[in-house]
C-alpha cells in the first residue's frame, strides 16, 4: 500500500490531478460555510452580470442568480451523482461478474449473454430508454448512467474472477469446507478489488460527463435544482449574448473530469505491474550507445570483430551487465559457435552487433564492433540499416514469433530484398521462389503465398533462413535457430547452413546451448558465462580438452550414446544475477575447484595453447582428463 502511494506521488501529473481534485471537493463541501449568495434566489433586475462586477464573483445568470453560489452547489451535485453512479455500477457490475466468473458453466453463460446484449447498444440509447421509462429526474439519470456502465464492470471483473476461481488457494478453501459465499468474500473479493479500483478510477470521469450530459438534455436534474450539466443546458439559450454563463459551468466540468482522468491514469499506472518493469516502452530503431571508456581500434583482418563489448540493461535503479567485455571475430567461410546457459549473454552479444538490443532498457556502454574495419557501435542509424539484412543477416529462434503473422511468406521475402535493392516485384518473387527452393521447401511456388501460421515449425525456420540469405550476406548471425525443432529437422538445417558456408564463403556466428551442434558445424567455439567469455578456442581443442571447469561440467551434462553407466552430472546452483556479480570468477560459487584466489580479483583470458584461451587460474589439467 505504501509503495502504491509512493508510486502515485512520483507521477507528477497524477499528483496534480489529486491536488486539483481535493481543492474542488473541499471547496464544494465547504461552500455552504462560505459567504456566497444563495444559489436559488432570483433577482431579475440583476440578470447576466459579468464576473467580478458589482460584488459578484462570477456574475449572475439569466434569472439573476449568483453564479458562484450555483457553481458550488452544482459541483457538489455533479460530484455526488457521478460518484454514486460509479459506486452503484461498480458494486452491481462486480457482483454480477464475480458470480458469473466464480460459478462458471451455465450461470456464466446466461449472465454473459445478457451482458453482451446490453453492450450491443450504443450506451446513450439504453440510458435514454431508461429515462424515457422512469421519467426525467436526477435520480433516474443516475440510475440510467449506473445501469449502462454495469456491463463494463461485469465483463472486466468476470475475466479476473475466472482466473482466480481456478487458483490453488481457492481449491484449498473449497476442500476445507468453506461455503461458496465465504470463499467469494474472503478469497476472491480481496483479489479483484484492485481491478475494481482501476476500472472505477478510469470510469468515474466518464460517468460525471454522462450524468452532466443527461442533465444538459433536460432529462436529469429539474429546476430549480441544478447540477453542472443543467446549468450549461439553461445557459445555452444565452450562449451568444452572455457566454460567461456557459463558460463557468463548462470549464468546471472540464477541470473536474481532467483532474479525475489524470488521477485515474496515475492509479492505473501505479497498479499495473507491466509499467513498473518498463515492458510497455517502445524499443528504439537502434540500441542506445553510451560509451565511457576508450574505443578499441580495429586491429586485424577479421570480417567481423567484436572488441571488449559491454551491453547493459538499465532497469529503474539497477544495472544488469548482460555482456561484460566480450571479444569475438569471424573470417569469411568460418563458423564460430557461442555456447552457454540461458542468460549467459550470448543472444545479447549477437543482437548488440547490429544494434538490435531493445532499448530502453538496453545500453551499449563500451567496446566496438568492427565490420571490415568500420565501427558499427554508435554508427548512424542509416549506416546500420543498410548493413542489416544486406551484409549481416540474422536468423532468429522461434520463427512463429519472429515472422510477421499477417503477411505471406513471399511478401516478407520480397520485402527483405526491396529494403536494399531496386528490384521489381516480379523479379523479387522469382528470386524468393529460388530462395525457398534453396532451403529445400517443397512446392515453393505454392508455399510462397501462404502465411507463417499455415506452416510447420521446421518450414518456418527454413523461411527464416531463406530470408537471411535473400541478399547474399557476408555474415549470418544465427541465434539458436534449431532449438525449437526436432532432431531430424535440426540435422537438415545444420547441413544446409554448412553447405552454404562452404559454397558462398559465408561467415557464421552460431549461438546455441548444444555441444552436438557445435561439433557438427563450428570451427571455433566461445563459451560464455555471466556475460563473459570463459573459454575460447578451436572446436577440436575445447571438445577434446575443456580447460575451464564450467566447460567441463557443461560437457558432462551431455548424454552420450554407448557410454553406458556414466552418471549425468548436473551443475549445482544457478548462474549469478548479472546485476550483482561477485569479484573474480563468477563461476566460483558453483565450482568444486575454487579457492580464495578465485574470488580475490578479476581473472583474465589467458592463452594455454596457440588455439585455446581460458579465463581460469586453476584450469582442468589436460593430462588428467586423458587419464580418466
Amino acid at each position, binding site marked *: 500500500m505504501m509503495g502504491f502511494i509512493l508510486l502515485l506521488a512520483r507521477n507528477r501529473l497524477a499528483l496534480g490531478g489529486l491536488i486539483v481534485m481535493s481543492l474542488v471537493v473541499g471547496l464544494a463541501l465547504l461552500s455552504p460555510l462560505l459567504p456566497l449568495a444563495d444559489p436559488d434566489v432570483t433577482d431579475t433586475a440583476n440578470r447576466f452580470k459579468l464576473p467580478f462586477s458589482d460584488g459578484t464573483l462570477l456574475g449572475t445568470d439569466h434569472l439573476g442568480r449568483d453564479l458562484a453560489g450555483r457553481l458550488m452547489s452544482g459541483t457538489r451535485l455533479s460530484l455526488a451523482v457521478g460518484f454514486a453512479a460509479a459506486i452503484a455500477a461498480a458494486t452491481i457490475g462486480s457482483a454480477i461478474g464475480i458470480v458469473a466468473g466464480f460459478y462458471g458453466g451455465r450461470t456464466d453463460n446466461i449472465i454473459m449473454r*445478457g451482458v453482451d*446484449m446490453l453492450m*450491443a*447498444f*450504443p*450506451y*446513450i*440509447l*439504453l440510458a*435514454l*430508454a*431508461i*429515462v*424515457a*421509462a*422512469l*421519467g*426525467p429526474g436526477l435520480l433516474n439519470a443516475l440510475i440510467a448512467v449506473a445501469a449502462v456502465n454495469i456491463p463494463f464492470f461485469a465483463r472486466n471483473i468476470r475475466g479476473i474472477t475466472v482466473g482466480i476461481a481456478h487458483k490453488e488457494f481457492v481449491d484449498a478453501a473449497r476442500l476445507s469446507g468453506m461455503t461458496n459465499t465465504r470463499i467469494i468474500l474472503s478469497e476472491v473479493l480481496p483479489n479483484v478489488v484492485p481491478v475494481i479500483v482501476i476500472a472505477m478510477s478510469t470510469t468515474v*470521469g466518464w460517468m460525471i*460527463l454522462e450524468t452532466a450530459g443527461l442533465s*444538459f*438534455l433536460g*432529462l436529469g436534474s429539474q429546476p430549480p435544482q441544478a447540477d453542472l450539466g443543467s446549468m*450549461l443546458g439553461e445557459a*445555452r439559450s444565452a450562449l*451568444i449574448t452572455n457566454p460567461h454563463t*456557459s463558460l463557468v459551468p*463548462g470549464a468546471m*466540468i*472540464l477541470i473536474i*473530469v481532467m483532474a479525475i*482522468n489524470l488521477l485515474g491514469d496515475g492509479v492505473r499506472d501505479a497498479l499495473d505491474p507491466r509499467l513498473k518493469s518498463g515492458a*510497455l*516502452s*517502445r*524499443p528504439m*530503431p537502434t540500441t542506445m550507445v553510451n560509451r565511457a571508456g576508450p574505443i578499441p581500434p580495429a586491429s586485424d583482418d577479421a570480417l567481423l570483430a567484436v572488441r571488449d563489448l559491454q551491453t547493459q540493461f538499465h532497469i529503474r535503479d539497477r544495472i544488469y551487465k548482460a555482456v561484460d567485455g566480450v571479444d569475438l571475430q569471424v573470417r569469411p567461410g568460418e563458423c564460430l559457435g557461442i555456447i552457454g546457459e540461458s542468460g549467459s549473454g550470448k543472444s545479447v552479444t549477437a*543482437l548488440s552487433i547490429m544494434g*538490435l538490443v*531493445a532499448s530502453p532498457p538496453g545500453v551499449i556502454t563500451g567496446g566496438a564492433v568492427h565490420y571490415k574495419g568500420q565501427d558499427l557501435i554508435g554508427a548512424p542509424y542509416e549506416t546500420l*540499416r*543498410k548493413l*542489416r*539484412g544486406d551484409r549481416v*543477416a*540474422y536468423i*532468429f529462434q522461434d520463427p512463429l*514469433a*519472429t*515472422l*510477421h*503473422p*499477417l503477411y505471406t511468406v513471399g511478401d516478407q521475402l520480397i*520485402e*527483405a530484398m526491396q*529494403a*536494399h535493392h531496386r528490384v521489381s516485384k516480379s523479379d523479387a518473387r522469382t528470386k524468393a521462389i529460388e530462395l525457398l527452393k534453396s532451403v529445400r521447401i517443397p512446392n515453393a511456388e505454392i508455399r510462397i503465398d501462404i*502465411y507463417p*501460421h499455415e506452416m510447420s515449425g521446421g518450414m518456418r525456420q527454413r523461411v527464416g533462413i531463406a*530470408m537471411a540469405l535473400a541478399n547474399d550476406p557476408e555474415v549470418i548471425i544465427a541465434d539458436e535457430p534449431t532449438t525449437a525443432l526436432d532432431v531430424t529437422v535440426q540435422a537438415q538445417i545444420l547441413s544446409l547452413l554448412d553447405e552454404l558456408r562452404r559454397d558462398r564463403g559465408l561467415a557464421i556466428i552460431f549461438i546455441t546451448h548444444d555441444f552436438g551442434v557445435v561439433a557438427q558445424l563450428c570451427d571455433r567455439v566461445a563459451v560464455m558465462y555471466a556475460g563473459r567469455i570463459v573459454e575460447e578456442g578451436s572446436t577440436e581443442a575445447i571438445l577434446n580438452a575443456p580447460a575451464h571447469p564450467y566447460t567441463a561440467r557443461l560437457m558432462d551434462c551431455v548424454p552420450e550414446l554407448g557410454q553406458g553407466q556414466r552418471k549425468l552430472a548436473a551443475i549445482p546452483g544457478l548462474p549469478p544475477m548479472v546485476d550483482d556479480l561477485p569479484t573474480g570468477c563468477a563461476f566460483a560459487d558453483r565450482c568444486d575447484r575454487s579457492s580464495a584466489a578465485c574470488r580475490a580479483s578479476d581473472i583474465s583470458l589467458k592463452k594455454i595453447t596457440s588455439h585455446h584461451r581460458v579465463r581460469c587460474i586453476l584450469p582442468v589439467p589436460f593430462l588428467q582428463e586423458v587419464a580418466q
Partner: protein
Amino acid sequence: MTGYILKRIVSAIPVLLGISIIVFLIMAMIPGDPATAILGSYATPENVAKLNSDLGLDKPLVQRYFIWLGNMLQGDFGRSFSLNREVLEEVQDRFGATLVLAGTAFVLCSLLGVAAGVVSASRQYGLADKLITFVVLLGISIPSFFIGMMMILIFAVNLRWFPVSGMWPIYGARDFSALISHLTLPALALTVVATGVIARLSRSAMLEVLRQDFIRTARAKGVSEHGVIWRHALRAAMVSIIPILGIQAGFVLSGAVYIEIVFQWPGIGRMLVDAILKRDILLVQGGVVFVAACYVLFNIAVDVAQSLLDPRIKA
C-alpha cells in the same frame, strides 16, 4: 468468406431479439397508463378503456411483445401521437441526417485517432508524444456539448466562418457545399472525444506490438523505420484497433445526441429527446430499436473487415 458473413448475420439474430426484449421490458416498466398519457388527465374512464383495448394494452405482456415484434418485422413501428406520423417514416428521415453527421465524425476520428496514436507511440516520451497525450487528455475530459457551444461562439458567431446551426440553409440551395459548411462544426465537435479515445488505445496497441519479435526481425532485415512503424507495426496493431473502432462507433452515435441538440441538427438523437420529453413512447421505442439494429449490423461489418485483415481468423 460468404460463409463467414452469413454465419455472422445469423449469429446477430439472437442479439437483435435480445435488444427488442430489453427495450420492450424497459418500456413496459413505465408507471401509469399510456392511454391516460395520450388522452390527457381529463379523459373519461370509458375512453381510456377503449383506447387501451384499441392499442392492445389490455393483453398479457408476452402476447403484447409478440404482437409488437410481429408488427415491427412487417415494417409497422406504430404511429407517433406527438407528430401524428408513422414512426418508421420519421425514424428513417431522422436517421439519414444522423448518419451524415455521425458517419463523417466516425471517419474523421478513425483517421485522426489512429494517426495520432501511431505518431505518439513511435515517438514515445518525445515532444510529439507529450503534446498528443496532453491534447488527447483534454479531448476526453471535455463534454462534447461544451465543445460544440464554444465552437459556435468562436467560429460561427465571432469569426462567422460557419453557420450557427441546422443542416441546411433556411433560404438558398440545398447543395453539397451548403451541407459541408453546416456539417463542419458539428462533425468536428463530435470527433474530438472519440479521437482522444482512439488515439489513446491505438498508442497502447502500437506499443504492445512494437515490442514483438517480428518487429525486431523487420529491423534486422533492414526495413526502414517508416516501414517498421507503418507497414509492420500498424498492420499488426490494426487487429486490436479495429474492434476499438467498432466500439467507438457506438460512442460517436451516442455523442451525436448532444451535438444534434447543440447544433439543431435534425437527427434521430434530437427526435428521441423530444419524444422522451413529450412521453411519445412508440417513437422512443421504435427509434431505439432501429438505431440499435443498425449498430449491430455495423458491427458485423467490423467483424468482416477484421477477418479480411487477419488471415488467422478462419472463415
